[in-house]
């Protein structure tokens, strides 16, 4: 679980865009990346992000 405070302060490290928080990943809709959440830690590494498409 990512706490609300952390959700409020994180932005996408690639485009500085707003993020959408899911259970296991964090999505940047603007640059279409999904960052993983591992052991409750948001992994905001561009190299670890998966490509994301709307509806996927």
């Amino acid at each position, binding site marked *: 679980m990512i706490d609300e*405070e952390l959700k*409020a*302060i*994180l932005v996408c490290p690639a485009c500085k865009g707003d993020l959408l928080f899911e259970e296991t990943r964090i999505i940047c809709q603007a640059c279409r990346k999904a960052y993983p959440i*591992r052991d409750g830690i948001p992994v*905001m590494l561009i190299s670890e992000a998966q490509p994301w498409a709307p509806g996927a």
Partner: protein
Amino acid sequence: MRVLVTGAAGFIGSHLCEALLDHGCDVVGMDNFITGSRENLNHVRDRRGFAFVEHNVTNHIGLEAPLDWILHFASPASPLDYLELPIQTLKVGALGTHNALGVARAKGARFLLASTSEVYGDPLVHPQREDYWGNVNPIGPRGVYDEAKRFAEAMTMAYHRVHGIETRIVRIFNTYGPRMRLNDGRAIPAFMTQALRSEPLTVFGDGSQTRSFQFISDLVDGIWRMMQRGTTEPVNIGNPQEMTLLELAKRILRLTNSRSEIVFRPLPVDDPKVRQPDITRARTRLGWEPRVDTDEGLKLTVEWFKNKLEGR
């Protein structure tokens, strides 16, 4: 007050996060775990006011929140690590520091750079005062760390001069304590691990080179004071009690009741022969001086290494 700590999962970073939380700060920790460890976060992960993000500060730092302080500790810091990660070490010193300063500027935050006694290189002045410019081989294998930190200091001062941000530079001398990595290649973890495993202690050269070791809690106290009332000028934070590496090896043998023998190995390239901080500036400007006696600090550290080696 909210503080960003880069390198939060490292040896010093993790102690710092703990102290900041104790002082009532909210802390956002960052680390990419290249040399930091997840285990170092165990004691703070669930504390109120702590949040953690896995991030490489060489890339843009995406934080949308007000921040009051930024403490930039991210970097490989043991010779073994930076010899193995020379480019990452230079990148985090240059690009990472630039990014962290950019955040400080955007948030109007006070910035602290964790610099190092390595900026003095193999010093020709002894003990080292902050106005000594150092003796560094820029193209030697160790140069990657020394020059990365020297560049980081220059960048920090440039941001202060050009953008007027409040900056602090601490030059950290050898520091030890619980949560150092067993295999980080530094003398204290190496000697302790060897002594506790009854393996021979490997001393480089003839062991006559000197170092000054401070206990982690003294350093953390110095950093706190530096943020409270420090100065833009660099400040040495270290324990001036100097000893030879051979003496250190013997002390550790005594404290661990070990019967290991001492063996000598060739000295690494550009290994500094002497190292001792002049802490007049820290004394006068911060009212700081080390309080933990070396044997006391070593005992606490031995206990921790013992538990670690026994898998507790």
